[in-house]
């Protein structure tokens, strides 16, 4: 008996996956990156659209410096099992830097790339990156301020047109 796995190569799938990245915090950058990477690995056409704070993920001068803050995050635990960081301590000076360093280390320990490197991999896998026109205008940013592999800066109408029939995820 021979069983040949079905990798779906003959299916004319028109599945399209679009992720809207609206956050610039380190922890909120990763869900879209992980899922986009997984979708590309399954042969699905994938687009990432960066808007508002998510612009920091693709802005050359900022993309290496995303941070994670425990402020307002009651699920922030200490390295001791199930002990929570008291919210009154979260805004103390140095806390964001410390929390960012810890999170970056945890991500690195899993062999997961930093944000710019992860986007390199997504583009190499055939993913498309788009920037939001309004966010660019608000921040006085042009294409030269963004990653060189951005497919373009597009407006809301372009986005609606592009996402026809797509599965959308807003992060």
């Amino acid at each position, binding site marked *: 008996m*021979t069983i040949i796995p079905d990798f779906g190569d003959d299916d004319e799938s028109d599945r399209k996956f679009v992720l809207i990245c609206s956050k610039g915090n380190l922890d909120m950058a990763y869900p879209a990156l992980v899922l986009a990477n997984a979708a590309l690995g399954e042969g699905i056409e994938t687009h990432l659209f960066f808007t508002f704070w998510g612009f920091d993920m693709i802005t050359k001068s900022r993309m290496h410096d995303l941070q994670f803050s425990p402020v307002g995050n009651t699920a922030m635990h200490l390295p001791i099992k199930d002990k929570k960081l008291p919210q009154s301590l979260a805004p103390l000076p140095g806390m964001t830097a410390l929390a960012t360093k810890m999170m970056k280390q945890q991500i690195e320990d899993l062999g997961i790339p930093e944000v710019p490197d992860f986007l390199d991999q997504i583009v*190499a896998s055939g993913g498309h990156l788009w920037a939001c026109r309004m966010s660019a205008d608000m921040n006085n940013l042009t294409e030269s301020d963004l990653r060189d592999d951005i497919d373009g800066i597009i407006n809301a109408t372009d986005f609606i047109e592009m996402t026809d029939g797509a599965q959308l995820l807003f992060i």
Partner: protein
Amino acid sequence: MPTATIAGHEVQINDEGFLTEYDEWNEDIAAELAKNIGIDMTDDHWKLINWLREDYKEKGETATTRRVQTVGGFPTKQQFVLFPKKPARKMAYIAGLPKPHGCV
């Protein structure tokens, strides 16, 4: 577990058709598995598949596409060219390994 005869060898497979026994694999079987999914093995394919098997032997789990790039030195783009559309799963299938568990 079903068994199958591939390239003249009787091997154990799972219900998706992936080999389940690391030591039952050989290059004849790999070439046949590759042919099953429309891939003609070239030197570049062999280099990657053999690396994947070596890495599995050492680590006990199948490398993700990320690891194939960073540790194996096979660029992501190349992986998609050699094993189109679904590189991670296709590489694992041909190498006689389980699908990778890692997310990235």
